[in-house]
């Protein structure tokens, strides 16, 4: 099943003098997991709040399956804000069911869905506990249950992995994969880039309220200069005069060279062999961390 598609186009927003969004544009398709990355203050939260109708952007459009998002559409969205918040004195089952009902479930369906999610997240035995009685990690799970309880077609999760232990990270990852497989569009932000890399088909990098890059990891890598690692039993001086290649770093693992497009790498291999015995010669696969650093610093 493929559900709707979220389209964010040309969002502009200022808080007084501060420009928060400066033309943010990207889309999240049904069944797709998109990671939103960028430094603090880059505009991730304001973008997500605009989608949820909490911030009303000065300009631009947020569309769901081609039409402007209205209040009725938002009932099909699930949201987990960066700053978590639920009623501390409310019992878990009642609380989750309440949010399900706010999203249009009738009382019986809401109660059933609340029980299902509490069971799935390992809180089945604590349905009558008040939220405040739970550990931080368990409160996070309840927050996730609130975002998921009404089977949303779009999930907007602001830093969902922050503060989770590795086990909880795995459990949340499984849930996201599962929802995406069921056709849900998933947009989440994170500073944990290796997680984003593992979970997302597509990554959107924002900086100063603008989209710096938007694409699959392979597409982003294509925009990143290739890097060649060469280890030679000789000092790295041989690499200083190479054409079309600059030394990025030198360490015990040899020399890391940034290669200009179109450079003859076989020439580099010959230069290395001339300098001494070659122990290692190969391209490095840039991770999202490298891509991100490269793009944000560029």
């Amino acid at each position, binding site marked *: 099943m493929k559900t709707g598609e979220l389209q964010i186009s040309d969002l502009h927003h200022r808080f007084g003098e501060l420009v928060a969004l400066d033309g943010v544009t990207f889309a999240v398709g049904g069944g797709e997991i998109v990671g939103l990355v960028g430094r603090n203050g880059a505009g991730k939260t304001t973008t997500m709040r605009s989608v949820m109708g909490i911030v009303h952007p000065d300009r631009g459009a947020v569309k769901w399956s081609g039409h402007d998002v209205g209040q009725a559409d938002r009932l099909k*969205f699930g949201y987990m804000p960066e700053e978590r918040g639920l009623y501390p004195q409310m019992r878990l089952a009642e609380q989750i069911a309440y949010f399900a009902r706010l999203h249009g479930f009738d009382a019986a369906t809401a109660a059933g869905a609340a029980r299902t999610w509490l069971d799935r997240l390992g809180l089945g035995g604590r349905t009558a506990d008040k939220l405040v009685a739970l550990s931080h990690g368990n409160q996070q799970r309840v927050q996730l249950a609130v975002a998921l309880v009404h089977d949303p077609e779009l999930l907007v999760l602001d830093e969902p992995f922050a503060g989770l232990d590795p086990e909880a990270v795995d459990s949340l990852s499984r849930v996201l994969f599962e929802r995406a497989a069921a056709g849900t569009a998933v947009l989440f932000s994170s500073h944990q880039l290796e997680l984003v890399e593992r979970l997302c088909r597509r990554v959107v990098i924002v900086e100063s309220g603008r989209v710096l890059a938007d694409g699959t990891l392979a597409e982003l890598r294509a925009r990143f200069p290739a890097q060649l690692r060469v280890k030679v039993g000789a000092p790295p001086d041989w690499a200083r005069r190479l054409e079309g290649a600059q030394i990025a770093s030198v360490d015990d693992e040899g020399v890391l060279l940034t290669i200009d497009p179109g450079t003859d790498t076989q020439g580099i291999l010959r230069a290395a062999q001339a300098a001494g015995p070659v122990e290692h010669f190969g391209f490095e696969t840039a991770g999202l961390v490298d891509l991100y650093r490269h793009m944000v610093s560029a």
Partner: protein
Amino acid sequence: MNRKGITRLVAEREITERLQGRLIRIMTVVTALVVAAGILVPSLIKSSSAPTRIGLVGSSAQALAPTLERTAAAAKTKVTVTKIPDDEAARADVLAGKLDVALIVGPSSARVEVKKSVNPTIRAVLQSSVDSVHVRQALAQAGLPVSKVPSALAPVAVTTVALKPPPPDQTARSVAAIAAALLMYVSLALYGTAVATGVAQEKTSRTAEVLLGAIRPSELLSGKVIGIGLTGLGQLTIAAAAGLIANALVHSTKIPGSVWVLIPTFLICFLAGFTLYAFAYAATGALVARQEEVQFVTMPIGLLLLVSYLLVYAVIGSPDATWVKVVSFFPPLTASLMPARIALGHVAPWELPLAALIMALSIWGMIRLASRVYANALIYSGARLSWKAAMQLSEAREPAPIRPYPS
């Protein structure tokens, strides 16, 4: 689900949460008890106002008995008269509490003996009785024929004509006005603060942002106000019922007709006043950065409520003063002052629809203003805001000037 359903859900949650709290149950019982006690206790005190027991010592004093009883009846004071043989016995009875007053009459003077003090009315009754007997004896000794004495001493009828008579149940009306104003003050301050606290809780616990992802600020706000308002109305109804039951138990206390009119008036005024104040309290509660600031930021509203309560005493003092009439139309004061004026019976028929219109317009204005402040302040995570700053937050949402993209 339609949007009304959402406001209703929010209101239901408020009511459920409040009914689960122990404090509200205690408060409801205490309020009901206080109201019942307010009716029961005065009536018990009243029924214990026993007649003053007067002991007449010796034959001269005992001869005063008929005169004394007549004078006391004229002064609307209840007395019982006992004849006591001598001073010693009378003194012992007074000290033992069997008598309130002992009267000893000598040839040219009289003495009143009491344990601690004597009620001035009783003292006047005694004085006048002794005087009249003394005059009668003097006239007889002076040779006036005995048959002429009663007519010489017959009282001259004095009629009192009140030029502006108060209504017959004036005291009851004043008491009703004060009670209504006090109840209004306490309940508006109590439930208003509950609204502010609830809003601040949702803001500081960040629940508001999760909620606003699904529902509109106006739905959240009105659901909260309705939920807390209905809880308050329920509590007031229980208190009113306790009062009526207490009254039924004490048959002697008559509720004047004006008070019956006052109950529906009071409930309507409570709803109007609560709506006006609750929205102000809600917007104010949204301004805080920390829960503890609620008390401080809502203080001006609390003071305004206190002033509106205290002004009721001015209304009772001079219900016809022009300034009293004018201020009772000032919306923040209407909910307290109008029931008081109605209780006192000083409201012209045209005044009520006018007051209702002004109140309705100000409620409308307050809802608009408060909703805007509320919606802006609720998701603002910085330091405490002022109303003005919260309004300006929304001005920052006006479209930004279109600029060329920096290259």
